[in-house]
């Protein structure tokens, strides 16, 4: 392979977005060099401009965006000066794109095969029959089931993980020199993600395709990329070979990308159970979602409910809060049974169990000020009014490390982390015993997550709160849990002290779940695939 002349060169690329009647910069002068057969990881948090930069490598700007300056050279072709027809001739043929949501990016009106072979056939590279043959080869290379016939299905007829693989096959079908992967596994569950990652990597290695891999997850990109470039606010923070980046990140911002992994606390339990679930079975209509769930929450401790989407963790929260009365079983609070339905519970019972949601955006009324949001429970549960409420709100703001200047703000005027803190303050205002945290950090950037988790731990120490922490993120569990409950398809697979759960031997599902979480080291994916192959051949 020729590594002297780069395949893609970007110099001082600037991209603007149109918002609020004016152009504001999204990408502020980024340089990028990519050689043939190389994989570059582009990492950054929301708003870093990584997707916008990725599309610019195809000479493409989304509606409402424009490439305003710099140089983009693809194999000697100046994409800034190329005509629309010249760019069309490149796209799909020499540069291909894999989108984040395959379900939305496949046209519902055509079969997978029709869409897979479209680029090479329309650009005159292959005949339809040749392309179809090649597509089947690619489906097989991507480990899709029934590679010969899966192409005849429509997008809504296959699963999310399979669609994502089919989309990679679609990108590869014209044998491109470069593929842009835009967060291709973000929407997938962790156990599905491993296999998709493995298939994608196998395919790019096999065909020697260069790639730009865009993600916010450092552990994922460590498996895929030769080099990593870190972006923040549309500027480059640093770039280094993957191993160097993981071993010795130069910039403090890069270190903060694995901030949550740095938090550790020993798991402890206690004899005093504040909340107990005994044999809970629940259903939505006639569809059963929970089967015989039993768990206990020790006072002042954190119980983490872990599982993938559809495992029933959020439903468990709905049963505890009384939103979904169970079909069988009971919820006991401080030893006494709680009425199953919300309506049957007293104001005091409601006060003592509070809830914090994943998305602070939808959990706060956008038309209420912070004072109203936090003040209402103070007024409602504790019967305070006027200056007393304000004084208490001020105190609560102090507890969540914000000041009085936030009191008359609306949620729209807060950052993501601040919003989640206000939600925590609203829960605290009720002076509860138990707080249910439903994926409270998963929508936030790492450094903000770290702040929120540390705040929750501090509040637990000072106020003796008990948490039920619902999450799909194993790192978060390691960081803050005392006890862990692993759930799968509405049942409890395993429960116990954190150290116990994380130490082998594991039940099969826990093993799969834990081993599927990418580790922050290169070569993890190979080991993982090798281990899988061993189990397959051994079993």
């Amino acid at each position, binding site marked *: 392979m020729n590594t002297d002349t780069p395949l893609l060169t970007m110099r001082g690329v600037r991209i603007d977005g149109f918002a609020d009647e004016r152009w504001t910069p999204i990408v502020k002068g980024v340089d990028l060099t990519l050689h043939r057969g190389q994989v570059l990881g582009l990492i950054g948090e929301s708003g870093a401009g990584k997707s916008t930069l990725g599309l610019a490598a195809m000479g493409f700007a989304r509606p409402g965006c424009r490439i305003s300056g710099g140089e983009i050279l693809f194999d000697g072709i100046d994409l800034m000066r190329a005509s629309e027809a010249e760019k069309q001739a490149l796209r799909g043929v020499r540069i291909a794109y894999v989108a984040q949501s395959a379900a939305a990016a496949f046209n519902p009106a055509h079969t997978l095969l029709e869409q897979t072979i479209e680029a090479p056939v329309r650009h005159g590279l292959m005949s339809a029959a040749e392309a179809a043959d090649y597509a089947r080869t690619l489906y097989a290379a991507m480990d899709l089931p029934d590679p010969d016939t899966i192409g005849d299905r429509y997008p809504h007829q296959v699963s999310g993980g399979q669609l994502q693989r089919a989309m990679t096959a679609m990108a590869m079908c014209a044998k491109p020199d470069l593929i842009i992967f835009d967060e291709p596994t973000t929407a997938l569950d962790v156990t599905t993600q491993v296999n998709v990652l493995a298939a994608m990597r196998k395919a790019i290695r096999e065909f020697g395709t260069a790639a730009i891999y865009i993600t916010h997850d450092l552990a994922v990109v460590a498996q895929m990329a030769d080099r990593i470039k870190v972006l923040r*606010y549309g500027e480059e923070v640093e770039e280094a070979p993957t191993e160097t980046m993981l071993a010795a990140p130069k910039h403090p911002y890069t270190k903060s990308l694995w901030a949550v992994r740095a938090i550790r606390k020993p798991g402890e339990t206690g004899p005093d159970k504040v909340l107990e679930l005994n044999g809970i079975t629940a259903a939505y209509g006639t569809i059963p979602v929970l089967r015989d769930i039993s768990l206990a929450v020790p006072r002042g401790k954190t119980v983490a409910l872990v599982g993938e989407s559809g495992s029933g963790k959020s439903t468990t929260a709905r049963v505890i809060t009384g939103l979904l009365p169970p079909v069988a079983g009971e919820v006991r609070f401080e030893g006494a049974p709680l009425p199953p339905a919300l309506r049957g519970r007293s104001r005091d019972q409601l006060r003592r169990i509070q809830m914090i949601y994943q998305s602070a955006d*939808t959990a706060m009324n956008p*038309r209420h000020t912070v004072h109203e949001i936090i003040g209402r429970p103070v007024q409602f549960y504790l019967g305070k009014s006027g200056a007393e409420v304000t004084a208490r709100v001020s105190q609560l703001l102090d507890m969540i490390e914000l000041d009085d200047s936030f009191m008359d703000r609306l949620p729209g005027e807060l950052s993501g982390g601040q919003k989640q803190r206000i939600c925590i303050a609203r829960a605290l205002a009720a002076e509860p015993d138990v707080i249910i945290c439903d994926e409270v950090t998963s929508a936030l950037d790492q450094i903000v997550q770290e702040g929120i988790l540390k705040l929750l731990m501090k509040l637990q120490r000072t106020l003796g709160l008990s948490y039920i922490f619902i999450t799909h993120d194993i790192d978060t569990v390691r960081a803050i849990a005392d006890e862990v409950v692993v759930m799968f398809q509405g049942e409890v697979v395993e429960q116990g002290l954190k150290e116990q759960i994380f130490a082998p031997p594991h039940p099969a599902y826990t093993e799969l779940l834990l081993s599927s979480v990418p580790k922050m080291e290169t070569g993890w994916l190979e080991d993982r695939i090798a281990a899988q192959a061993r189990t397959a051949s051994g079993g």
Partner: protein
Amino acid sequence: MTDTPETYSAAAEIGAPRTRRGPGTRAWLALKKAPVSAWFGLVVICAYALVAIFAPLLAPHGEAQVFAQPYAPWTANHPLGTDQIGRDILSRLIYGARNTIGIALTTTLLAFLIGGGLALVAAIARGWTDQILSRLVDVLMAIPSLIFALMLLSIFGASVLSLIVIIAVLDSTRVFRITRAVAMNVVVMEYVEAARLRGEGTWWIMRREILPNIMPPLVAEFGLRFCFVFLTIAALSFLGLGIQPPTADWGSMVRENASLIQFAQYDLKAGITPLLPAAAIALLTVGVNFVVDWFLMQTSGLKDEH
């Protein structure tokens, strides 16, 4: 490279750019950026409101005052001439503003009271209440409203009261649909669930959590519904089944003087006289539509920001 704070502080985290402004200033700022069409619409609406309110002061003659000469040409005494029985057209146009707009406004308000109220009840109660109300509305909406109105008018007779009630009830089905749809979007929000978990009552949730969040689309809808009601009443009056004489009303004025159009070749002024009340109707609805269009752009633009 960007400077990274070595110590993390929540308060220092960048939120949305914030300048605290009162609702008055915000409205003024929005207005300053408003397109010409919106300004035009606002001016039209204000002018109509003034004419409607001060009709008796502005009109040169009485609403039903009959003069000797029917179909009089435009003169100083009768700037727009007289109608088929000798009433001053300008005066009737001015009084017509009051009657036509007043009746349309009353009808729209009544429609929102009925449709909006039932929709909120349906959205919060859900279950059977919602099912029954929604199916009923479906059936009522299966008949075109002008046709339904004609049928009902044939039974109850054409009077202002039956006109208002019939149109309001028929139009409330549309209000019900949209209010229920936007309220449903809000009801499923987690902040409403949070309020229910807190133990708040239905009335409080409706007033404090839901209403403030459905106001912008409802205000826009009010504008559109007003136009629709206004045009329906004008059409019915034009057909002779709406507002009855001698009350001055733009729809019936068009009908009464329509025959003048054929004289346009000989006297253009006479020819366009019957079009004046029609133009008055069109101008107001165009104005309201322009303002609603701008308002919708404003509120949906706000949503994009967050």
